[in-house]
C-alpha cells in the first residue's frame, strides 16, 4: 500500500470550498426565517436608566424586541474545560463594558431588523470605567491560575551571573477576527432545538444551551460542518448565541443572527494586552543562571480568561533558578478569550526578545546562546522529553536560512538603501490533549464511515482524519468518509490548544482498531475464513483486506466477510485519553520550533518589510504535509500580523474600540507576506499511538520576537512594544 499518512493529499473538502458550496452557519436558510440585530451599549460602565423600544417595535416587519426588562431570567452556562461560561446576557440593567449587548431585535428581513435596532433609545447612568491596568481602583488577582513557578533560588542564581539583562515588554489587545462573521441560526420544534453556529466546539454549545434553557441535551442538535475560521473566537458559547436562541423561542420562527464586523470586536473574545518583565542572568560563557518573569493582563468584570504570559519562562530553557508571577486585573472591557496561542503568543515575545538582549550583552550569537541552554529534560518535572527535536530545528532552520551569513554588529548588513536584519526566536509549545471519542463503521461494500462531533476550522481535520482512518483500516482514502460538526456524533472536545488532532486522531485510530477486532470476532469460529481464530496482533490491513502479518495470501476482504455473515454494517467506538507524563515516565512534549527572519528597514522612511521567513518545526508525526505546512504558514502570517499590524485601540475615556472595522484594524494583505519556508523535523512522538504533536499554534509563536530581534540587528533599535510601527523606526 502506498503511504497514506504524511502524503500531501489535497483536502477532501477542497471541491466544496473552491466552488462556494461548503455550508457555513450563515449560509443556512429556512422557510419563515426571521433575522436578528443587536443593540449594544455605548458606555463602558454604569446602568441603563431607561430603554425605549416603542419606535423599534412599531417599525415595519418587527417581530420582537427583547431587553433586560422583558427577558426571562437565564442561568449562567456551565463550568467547562476552558473555565466558566461567559455571563448570560440582558439579565439586569448593569453595563460592564462598551459594546455589551443590551437588546436583540427580530424582524422579517435583515434590513428591517438593523433599522429597527437603530431606533432603540437607551439612556445610561454612567460611572467612570476601569480601563487601565494601573488604575488603583481595579481589583487585582495574584497567581490567578495557580501556575506561578518557583524553582531553585533565583537570588542566588542572579548573584552567580556575570551578565544580567532586564526589560519590560508590552503587547496590545488583538482581535481574533476570523473572516467568517460568527453566526447563529436557531430553530425550536417544541422543546427541541436545532442550532447552526460558528463554533469550534459543538458539544459545548449543546451542553450550555441545555443548562441555560432547561431542556434535555438530547433534544438539542448543534451543527457546524464548516466554520469560517476561529482562532479561538469560537471556543466559548458567547452571549449572542443565547440571545438568538431566546429570540427564536419568543417569535416561534427560525431566527438568524450574523454578527457585524464591529460586533466581532466586542462579542467573541480577544487576546488581552499584557505588560511583562523578563530578567535573565547568565555566566560569561552563556549559561543561564536565573530567570525572573512577571506579567499582567486584564480580564472582564464578571468573566475568566487563561493568559499566564510569564509561564513560558519556566519551561523554555534548562535553567535551575526560575521565578514566574502572573496577575490579572478586572476592567470594564469586552471579555478576553483565547486567541491562537493564548499567553504563549505574548509571553514568547518578551522572553525571546530578552534572550536576544542577553546574547547581545554577552557578545554571543543568539543561536549559540539558545543551543547552550537547550533543555535536555523537561525543566519542571525533570523527566526526559517524549521527544524534542529543537536542536535539529535550530540546525536545519539556520542552514536553510543562511544564518551563518549574519554579521553580528547591528546595522552592519545593507543592500542599497535598505538596512538588513537577521533575527531568530525559539518556541517550546506546551502539550495539550483532552479526552475524545469517535465511531467507525464498515459497510458491506467495504467502505468506511467515521465521525466525531469535532470541527474543522480550516486546520484540515476532515482530511487528516480521513487519512488516519484509511491507514488504520487498510482502505484507500477514497473508500473512507469522515464527518464532523454535528453534536449528535460522538463527543469531541474543542478545536483548540493545538490538541484536537492528537485527541481525535487517537480516538479515530482506536475506533478503527476495534473495528478490525470486531471483524476478527465475526470470523473467530468461521471455518470458511483464513482468519479464523486470529487476534488483532496477528493481522494487518491493506487494500480493503485483513491478512496474516507477512502472509498476504492468508486473508480476505472486509466485503467478503461482511457478506458471508449477512452483516450490513459493523461499528466500533474509540475513546482517547490524554497521555500522562507520570504514567509514561516521560514529559509529554508539545511542538518545538525555531524561527528565522530577514527584515529590511528603510531608515529614512521607517518602512519595515519582512523579506524571508524560515520556520523549522518539530511537530511529531506529520499526517499531511500539505495541510500541516498550511498550518505553519498561516500561523506565521498570524505572527507577522501580531508583530507589525494588529492593535485593537480602545479609547481611554469611553472604553469604545476606535478601530473596529477591517478598514481600520490592520491585518496583512497578500502584498505584505513573503514566501514562507517551512521545514518539518523530528520523529513521531511516542506518547500516543498516532505520534502527532499539534501544529496549530507553534507557527505563530516566535515571529514577533524574531522580527523585533531582526529589527534590532538591522537598526540597533530595541523595540519592546508591539506592534512595531513606523514611528518606532524613523531613525
Amino acid at each position, binding site marked *: 500500500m502506498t503511504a497514506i499518512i504524511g502524503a*500531501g493529499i*489535497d*483536502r477532501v*473538502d*477542497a*471541491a*466544496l*470550498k*473552491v*466552488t*462556494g*458550496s*461548503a*455550508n*457555513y452557519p*450563515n*449560509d443556512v*436558510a429556512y422557510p419563515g426565517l426571521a433575522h436578528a440585530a443587536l443593540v449594544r451599549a455605548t458606555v463602558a460602565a454604569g446602568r441603563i436608566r431607561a430603554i425605549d423600544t416603542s419606535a423599534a417595535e412599531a417599525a415595519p416587519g418587527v417581530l420582537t424586541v427583547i431587553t433586560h426588562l422583558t427577558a426571562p431570567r437565564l442561568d449562567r452556562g456551565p463550568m467547562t474545560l476552558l473555565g466558566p461560561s461567559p455571563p448570560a446576557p440582558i439579565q439586569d440593567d448593569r453595563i460592564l463594558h462598551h459594546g455589551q449587548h443590551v437588546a436583540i431585535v427580530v424582524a422579517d*428581513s*435583515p*434590513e428591517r431588523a438593523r*433599522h429597527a435596532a437603530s431606533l432603540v433609545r437607551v439612556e445610561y447612568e454612567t460611572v467612570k470605567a476601569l480601563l487601565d491596568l494601573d488604575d488603583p481602583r481595579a481589583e487585582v488577582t495574584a497567581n490567578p491560575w495557580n501556575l506561578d513557578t518557583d524553582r531553585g533560588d533565583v537570588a542566588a542564581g542572579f548573584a552567580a551571573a556575570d551578565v544580567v539583562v532586564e526589560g519590560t515588554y508590552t503587547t496590545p489587545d488583538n482581535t481574533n*477576527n*476570523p*473572516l*467568517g*462573521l460568527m453566526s447563529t441560526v436557531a430553530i425550536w420544534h417544541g422543546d427541541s432545538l436545532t442550532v447552526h453556529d460558528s463554533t469550534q466546539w459543538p458539544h459545548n454549545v449543546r451542553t450550555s444551551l441545555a443548562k441555560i434553557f432547561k431542556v434535555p441535551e438530547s433534544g438539542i442538535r448543534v451543527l457546524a460542518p*464548516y466554520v*469560517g*475560521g476561529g*482562532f479561538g473566537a469560537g471556543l466559548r458559547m458567547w452571549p449572542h448565541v443565547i440571545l438568538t436562541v431566546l429570540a427564536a423561542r419568543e417569535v416561534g420562527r427560525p431566527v438568524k443572527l*450574523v454578527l457585524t*464586523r464591529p460586533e466581532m470586536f466586542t462579542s467573541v473574545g480577544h487576546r488581552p494586552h499584557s505588560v511583562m518583565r523578563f530578567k535573565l542572568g547568565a555566566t560569561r560563557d552563556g549559561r543561564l543562571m536565573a530567570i525572573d518573569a512577571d506579567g499582567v493582563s486584564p480580564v472582564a468584570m464578571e468573566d475568566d480568561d487563561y493568559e499566564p504570559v510569564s509561564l513560558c519562562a519556566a519551561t523554555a530553557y534548562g535553567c535551575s533558578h526560575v521565578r514566574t508571577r502572573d496577575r490579572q486585573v478586572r476592567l470594564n472591557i469586552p471579555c478576553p478569550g483565547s486567541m491562537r496561542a493564548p499567553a504563549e503568543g505574548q509571553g514568547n515575545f518578551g522572553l525571546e526578545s530578552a534572550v536576544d538582549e542577553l546574547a547581545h550583552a554577552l557578545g554571543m550569537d543568539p543561536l549559540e546562546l539558545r543551543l547552550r541552554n537547550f533543555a535536555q529534560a523537561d525543566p519542571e518535572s525533570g523527566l526526559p522529553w517524549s521527544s524534542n527535536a529543537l536542536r535539529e530545528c535550530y540546525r536545519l532552520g539556520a542552514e536553510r536560512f543562511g544564518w551563518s551569513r549574519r554579521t553580528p554588529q547591528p546595522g552592519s548588513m545593507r543592500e542599497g538603501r535598505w538596512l538588513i536584519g537577521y533575527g531568530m526566536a525559539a518556541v517550546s509549545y506546551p502539550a495539550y490533549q483532552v479526552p475524545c471519542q469517535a465511531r467507525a463503521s464498515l459497510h458491506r461494500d467495504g467502505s468506511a464511515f467515521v465521525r466525531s462531533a469535532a470541527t474543522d*476550522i*480550516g*486546520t*484540515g481535520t476532515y482530511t487528516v482524519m480521513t487519512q488516519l482512518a484509511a491507514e488504520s483500516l487498510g482502505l484507500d482514502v477514497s473508500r473512507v468518509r469522515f464527518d464532523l460538526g454535528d453534536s449528535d456524533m460522538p463527543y469531541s472536545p474543542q478545536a483548540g490548544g493545538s490538541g484536537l488532532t492528537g485527541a481525535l486522531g487517537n480516538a479515530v485510530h482506536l475506533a478503527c482498531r476495534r473495528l478490525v477486532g470486531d471483524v476478527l470476532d465475526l470470523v473467530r469460529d468461521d471455518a470458511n475464513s483464513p482468519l479464523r481464530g486470529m487476534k488483532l496482533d496477528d493481522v494487518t490491513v491493506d487494500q480493503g483486506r485483513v491478512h496474516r502479518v507477512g502472509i498476504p495470501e492468508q486473508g480476505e476482504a472486509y466485503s467478503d466477510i461482511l457478506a458471508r455473515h449477512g452483516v450490513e454494517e459493523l461499528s466500533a467506538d474509540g475513546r482517547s485519553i490524554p497521555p500522562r507524563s507520570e504514567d509514561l515516565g516521560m514529559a509529554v512534549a508539545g511542538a518545538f520550533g525555531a524561527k528565522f527572519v530577514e527584515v529590511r528597514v528603510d531608515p529614512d522612511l521607517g518602512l519595515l518589510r519582512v523579506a524571508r521567513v524560515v520556520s523549522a518545526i518539530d511537530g511529531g508525526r506529520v499526517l499531511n504535509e*500539505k*495541510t500541516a*505546512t*498550511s498550518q505553519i*504558514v*498561516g*500561523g*506565521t*502570517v*498570524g505572527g507577522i500580523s501580531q508583530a507589525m499590524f494588529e492593535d485593537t485601540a480602545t479609547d481611554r475615556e469611553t472604553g469604545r474600540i476606535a478601530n473596529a*472595522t*477591517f*478598514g481600520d484594524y490592520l*491585518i*496583512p*494583505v*497578500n*502584498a*505584505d*507576506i*513573503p*514566501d*514562507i519556508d517551512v521545514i518539518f523535523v523530528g520523529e513521531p512522538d511516542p506518547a500516543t499511538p498516532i505520534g502527532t504533536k499539534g501544529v496549530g499554534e507553534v507557527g505563530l509563536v516566535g515571529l514577533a520576537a524574531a522580527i523585533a530581534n531582526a529589527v534590532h540587528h538591522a537598526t540597533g533599535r530595541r523595540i519592546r512594544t508591539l506592534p512595531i510601527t513606523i514611528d518606532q523606526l524613523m531613525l
Partner: protein
Amino acid sequence: MEVTLNVNGSAHPLRLDARVTLLDALRDHLGLTGAKKGCDQGACGACTVLLDGRRVVACLTLAAQCEEREVTTIEALSEEGTPHPVQAAFARHDAFQCGYCTPGQIMSAVALLAEGRAGSEEEIREFMSGNLCRCGAYPNIRKAIRDVAEEG
C-alpha cells in the same frame, strides 16, 4: 422595488427592499451563498463577484444598481462538474484553509487573469491585496494563480 438581476446567465425578477445589497440579494433571495459576507463594509473582498466582467464587492453594490447588468458568481465557474482551472489550482496548492474567503479570492483571481494582470509575482501580490485571508494562505494563493497564468 422591482429589479431584474441577470445572474450567471439567468434573469431573476425580484421585489426587494431598496436597501438590499447585491450580496444579500444573491445570498438571501436567490440562494446563491457562494459569495461570503466578511465585513459588509467593502474591506475584505469575501463577497467579490463580477459585474459585467469586472470585480466588485457585492456588499457595497446595491441590487438596484444591477438592473440590465450581468452578474457572475462562483457558482458559475465550474462547468458540468469540471472545475475552472483556478479552482483546480487552489485545491492543488492548498490555497485556503477555512475556505470562507475562497470564493472571493477565486473570483478576483479569475478577473486578474482575464485582465492580464497576473504577469508576475509582484503583480499578483498587489492586485490580490483587496482580498483578505485571515488563515494566511497568501503564499499558496499566489502559487495557484501563477500556475494558471503560466499554463496560459
